[in-house]
């Protein structure tokens, strides 16, 4: 039969070994016996839990970009810095490509990850098929790979240490928010994208 599919089978993404699918308990992790790659993991979080995580991430993301990352004091002159301001300052120095690179990986892609997860999970939570489903899932896979909120966080800590000789630096809420965002995004990423494909297929059926 043309187009026949086998939802009862799992193939390892990294070595192509085939296994029979079986449901995993919430504390189980399935690994390939040949190459040890992750095949799947049981989730403690259902759709509602994942949706809550994505909503929390959105709030933290907004706080992280509106509040100052740091406050600097140079002999009484104070400056406050948010992430969009740092990117704008880099743009103005003439290194536009670098500014765009930072904008994409620390701002646009993390935001896109959150927005796409909300877009997909909210309808599924109500038993509906998300509009633009196939496109949204492909886009999610792509932006997840290029989202670097946690790298940005470590970069901010190092920038603070390096500027300490030039000015008095104090940490702002924006930095704390990016810390929480890194944790939330990592938790979301652990739930994977392939699980979403299956969940959507089940919800649509």
């Amino acid at each position, binding site marked *: 039969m043309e187009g*026949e599919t086998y939802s009862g*089978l*799992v193939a390892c993404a990294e070595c192509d070994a085939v296994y029979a699918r079986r449901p995993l308990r919430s504390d189980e992790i399935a690994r390939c016996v*040949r190459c040890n790659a992750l095949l799947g993991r049981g989730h403690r979080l259902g759709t509602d839990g994942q949706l809550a995580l994505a909503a929390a991430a959105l709030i933290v993301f907004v706080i992280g970009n509106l509040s100052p990352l740091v406050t600097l004091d140079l002999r009484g002159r104070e400056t406050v810095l948010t992430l969009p301001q740092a990117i704008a300052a880099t743009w103005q120095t003439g290194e536009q490509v670098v500014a765009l*690179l930072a904008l994409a990986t620390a701002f646009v892609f993390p935001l896109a990850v959150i927005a796409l997860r909300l877009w997909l999970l909210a309808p599924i939570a109500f038993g509906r098929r998300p509009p633009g489903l196939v496109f949204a899932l492909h886009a999610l896979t792509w932006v997840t790979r290029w989202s*670097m909120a946690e790298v940005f966080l470590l*970069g*901010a800590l190092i920038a603070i240490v390096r500027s300490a000789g030039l000015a008095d630096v104090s940490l702002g809420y924006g930095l704390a928010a990016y810390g929480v965002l890194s944790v939330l995004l990592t938790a979301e990423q652990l739930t994977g994208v392939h699980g979403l494909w299956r969940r959507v297929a089940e919800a649509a059926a």
Partner: protein
Amino acid sequence: MPPEPSSARSRGLVRCTHCGLVSRIDGAPGCVRCRLPLHSRKPHSLQRTAAWLIVAAVLYIPANLLPVMGTESVLGAYEHTLLGGIVELWESGSWELSLIVFVASIAVPIVKIAALALLTATAAARSRWRQLERAKLYRLVETVGYWSMLDVFVVVLLVGMVSFGALASVSPEPGLLAFGAVVIATMLAASSFDARLIWPDAHG
């Protein structure tokens, strides 16, 4: 050791790279669930990986030789290379951070280029040498690769933070662009490589 599992391809099956659904290899050309083309192995995987590796290796030279950052203060104007920034961190007493930056900016890109070159060469030779270790090496390269973007963020933030006009200012320099390009090229090289080529079957 458990018996060697059979590969999807040798059973006439294909796993969709995008959504994971298993279909018949001689069925429809596209995945029924996500509609993208089905491939048992990524097309031209090794050629594309090798091409991105060459780009990364070439750009690694200006990334390390050119300054990535300039500072101007009442003490004078200076230009800083990647390695220079690491030395400054070390001398300021933050040896832990300087170690992190050294690993992320200098060690990871070069180790990543070398590791992917090794993986590409052994896969091209259809080698069965240390397959499990090679699979784990690829997974490591995939996981740690994007942390190299660290220095790009450090400079962008310093540019925004240290802007006190004539008193003190920081500017990005061309080496940073080359460095960002190295990181992107190595990430594209890693995602072009098809890890299934580490485990050749009867079909090659």
